[in-house]
C-alpha cells in the first residue's frame, strides 16, 4: 500500500523478466528484509565457502567457527559503538589505545592493587567484578573527556581521538613502565572464552531456546501493534518464514558450538585431577557458546535497543542526518555527542576485558590497530561515513567479515604482509560496492 507505484515501473521496463523479477521482489517486499543486509550475509557465506575450499576443508569446521566467534567478540563490541560515532559524522581513532590502557588498568587492579590494599587473594569472587567496574568507569571517563572536548570545545573528533590514540597508548605503557601483567584472576578469565569460559551444552540449548521464544514473541508483538493501528501487515507466510529462519539460524549456531568438543589434552588433565571418569578418547564434552560471544551478543542487543527504541538513538540518527535541524528542534546535540563517546569508552572497556581475559595478560601493545578493524567493521557493515546511516547488526556482521578474512588467510598459510594487502583491498572494494548499491537505490 505504501509503495505500490515503484515496483510497477521497474516491471514495465523489463517485461520479459517481469514474472521472474516479481517473485523475488514480492518475496523481499513481503518479508521486509533489508536487501543490503542480505547481500552482506551472502558475501560472508561466499568468503566462508571460498576459504573452506582453499584451506582444504579447515574453515567450516565447528572448531574454526567457534574460534572465529570468540576472536570476533572484542572488535564486534567496539564496532557497535563505532556505528553511533560514525553515524553522527565523527570518528574514533583511539579505541585500540583505550582498550590497551583500560586493559592494563584492569589487570593491575586485579593482580596488584586488590591483593595489596583489600587483601583479596586471587580467585576472590569479588575480584573480577571490581576489576571490570574499575575498567568501565575509567573507559567512561576517557570517553567522556574525548566527548567533552569534541562537543563542548569544538575540536574535531578526528584530532581529539588521534591525540587519544597517542596519549592512551603511551599511558598504557606508563602504568607498569611497559611490563606485561599476568596472569589474570580465574573468574575474570572466563570472559575470554576457552573450555571453561563457555557455558556448556545444556545452557547453550537453553539460551538458544530463549532467543527463539523472544524472536517469535517479537514477531507477534509487532504484528499486534500494526493491527492496532491498522497498518499494512506482512502476509502470514512471510511471518512464519522469518520466524522459522531465525530459529533455525539460532539453533544451528548453538549446535555448531555444541559439537566443538573439549580438546583431548584438557580431558586428560581433568581425568587426572579426578574431575572426570572414563576413557579419554570416549568422552565428548561440547564447548557450547563462549562467554565473550554471549557478552558481544548482549552488547549488540542493548545497543540495538538504544539506537532504535530510545529518544537518544533517534537523536543520534537525526544528528547524523542534519545537525542544524536537530539543534533547531530543541535537542541538546552537544550532550548527545558527549554521551556517544562515553558509551564508546564503556564499550572499549568491555572489549578490553574480553581481550585481556582471553590473553590471560595485559600488555602495553594490546589493541594496537584495533581502531582500524573497528572502523572497517562498521563501514563494511553499512555505516555511512557521510553520517546518518548505519545499523548495529550490520557492524557485527562487518566485524565477522573482517575476522573471517584474517583467520581464513591464516588457515591458508598466507604471509602477514599479504594478509594486510588483501584486507585493505577488500575494505575498499566493499565500500565501493556499497556506494554503487546506494546509488542504484535512488
Amino acid at each position, binding site marked *: 500500500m505504501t509503495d505500490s507505484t515503484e515496483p510497477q515501473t521497474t516491471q514495465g521496463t523489463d517485461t520479459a523478466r517481469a514474472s521472474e523479477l516479481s517473485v523475488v521482489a514480492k518475496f523481499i517486499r513481503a518479508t521486509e528484509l533489508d536487501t543490503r543486509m542480505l547481500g552482506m550475509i551472502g558475501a560472508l557465506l561466499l568468503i566462508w565457502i571460498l576459504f573452506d575450499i582453499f584451506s582444504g576443508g579447515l574453515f567450516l569446521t565447528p572448531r574454526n567457527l567457534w574460534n572465529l566467534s570468540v576472536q570476533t567478540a572484542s572488535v564486534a563490541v567496539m564496532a557497535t559503538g563505532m556505528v553511533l560515532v560514525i553515524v553522527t559524522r565523527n570518528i574514533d581513532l583511539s579505541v585500540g589505545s583505550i582498550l590497551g590502557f583500560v586493559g592494563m588498568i584492569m589487570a593491575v587492579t586485579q593482580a596488584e592493587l586488590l591483593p595489596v590494599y583489600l587483601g583479596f587473594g586471587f580467585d576472590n569472587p569479588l575480584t573480577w567484578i571490581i576489576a571490570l567496574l574499575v575498567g568501565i568507569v575509567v573507559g567512561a571517563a576517557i570517553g567522556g573527556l574525548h566527548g567533552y572536548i569534541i562537543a563542548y570545545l569544538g575540536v574535531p573528533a578526528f584530532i581529539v581521538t588521534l591525540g587519544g590514540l597517542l596519549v592512551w597508548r603511551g599511558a598504557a605503557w606508563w602504568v607498569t613502565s611497559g611490563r606485561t601483567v599476568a596472569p589474570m584472576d580465574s573468574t575474570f578469565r572466563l570472559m575470554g572464552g576457552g573450555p571453561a569460559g563457555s557455558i556448556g551444552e545444556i545452557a547453550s540449548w537453553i539460551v538458544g531456546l530463549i532467543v527463539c521464544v523472544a524472536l517469535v514473541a517479537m514477531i507477534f508483538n509487532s504484528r499486534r501493534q500494526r493491527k492496532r493501528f491498522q497498518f499494512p501487515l506482512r502476509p502470514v507466510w512471510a511471518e512464519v518464514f522469518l520466524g522459522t529462519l531465525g530459529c533455525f539460524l539460532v539453533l544451528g549456531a548453538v549446535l555448531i558450538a555444541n559439537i566443538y568438543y573439549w580438546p583431548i589434552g584438557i580431558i586428560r588433565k581433568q581425568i587426572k585431577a579426578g574431575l572426570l571418569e572414563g576413557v579419554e578418547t570416549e568422552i565428548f564434552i561440547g564447548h557450547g557458546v563462549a562467554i565473550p560471544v554471549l557478552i558481544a551478543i548482549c552488547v549488540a542487543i542493548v545497543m540495538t535497543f538504544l539506537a532504535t527504541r530510545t529518544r537518544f538513538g533517534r537523536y543520534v540518527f537525526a544528528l547524523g542526518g*542534519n545537525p542544524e535541524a536537530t539543534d533547531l528542534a530543541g535537542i541538546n546535540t552537544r550532550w548527545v555527542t558527549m554521551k556517544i563517546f562515553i558509551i564508546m569508552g564503556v564499550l572499549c572497556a568491555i572489549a578490553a576485558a574480553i581481550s585481556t581475559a582471553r590473553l590471560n595478560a595485559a600488555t602495553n601493545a594490546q589493541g594496537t590497530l584495533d581502531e582500524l578493524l573497528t572502523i572497517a567493521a562498521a563501514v563494511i557493515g553499512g555505516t555511512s561515513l557521510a553520517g546518518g546511516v548505519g545499523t548495529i547488526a550490520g557492524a557485527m556482521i562487518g566485524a565477522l567479515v573482517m575476522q573471517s578474512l584474517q583467520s581464513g588467510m591464516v588457515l591458508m598459510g598466507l604471509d602477514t604482509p599479504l594478509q594486510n594487502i588483501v584486507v585493505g583491498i577488500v575494505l575498499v572494494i566493499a565500500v565501493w560496492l556499497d556506494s554503487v548499491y546506494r546509488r542504484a537505490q535512488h
Partner: protein
Amino acid sequence: MNTNTATQPLVDMRELSISFGGIHAVEQASVDLFPGEVVALLGHNGAGKSTLIKILSGAYQRDGGEIDIDGSLATIDNPRDAKGYGIETIYQTLALADNVDTAANLFLGRELLTPWGTLDDVAMEAKAREVMGRLNPRFQRFKEPVKALSGGQRQSVAIARAILFNARILIMDEPTAALGPEETAQVSELILQLKSEGIGIFLISHDIADVFDLADRVAVMKNGQVVGYAKTGDVDKDEVLGMIILGKCPPGATPGPGALAS
C-alpha cells in the same frame, strides 16, 4: 496600529539587536504580532528578516533588546525555550533530518513514548498519518526517509511539524519558495485557517507578491533595520516595493529607525 480587537500583543519584540563579527545583522528592530494576525516581514535577501526571526525562535541569541510574550518578559535562549512558549518555526531550509522518516521528523525532540520510556513509533506514525492526511491527503510515503520525498512533500512535513503541537505563534520563512502553484494555494488556505483559529503568524518573504494578499500588516526591513510598518489596506504594492528597495516610507506607513530621512 493593529487590525485586531485584542489590545495585548501575542509577541512584542522591542529593539532587538544582534551582530556577527562586527556586522550589525539586526539593529534595534521592533515588531509586534497580535492573535489571529498575519504580519509579513519583507526585505531583500540579507536585510536581516531571517536573522530577526531566528532570535524569536531561539536559534540565535540576541545581543540586546527584549521579547514579551502575552505581555510578560520572555526568556528565549534556545529553540526549546521558544517551543515552550508555543513558538513554532518553518525554516527556509525546512530543517528536516533527511535520513529519518516523516513521523520521526514530526516528533523530533518531542517523541511519544510508551509506558516503558521507549519510542512509541506506531503511535507516532498513526498521528503522522492523521495530520498529513489533513494537510496533504495524497501523501502515502510514511516509511521512507524524508530525503526521498519531493519538495512539496517535504514542505508539508515541515508545516505539519509546526502545527502538530498547538502552536500559538507560527513563523514561516519563505514558506512557498519550493512549491508549485497548486501547493502554494494550499498553503495560503492553511494560513487563513490557522489565522481564524487565533494563531499569530509571521510570514517572511523577499517576494511581496507571495504574501501581500495574505497579510494584515507588513513590516519592511533593510540593512538590518526596520524601514516601517503599514496595514496592507493603507498602502499598495508599489509603495511597499519602494520601502523594500529604497527604504522610503510612504504616507500610509509608520516609519521605523531604518526609514530614509526625507
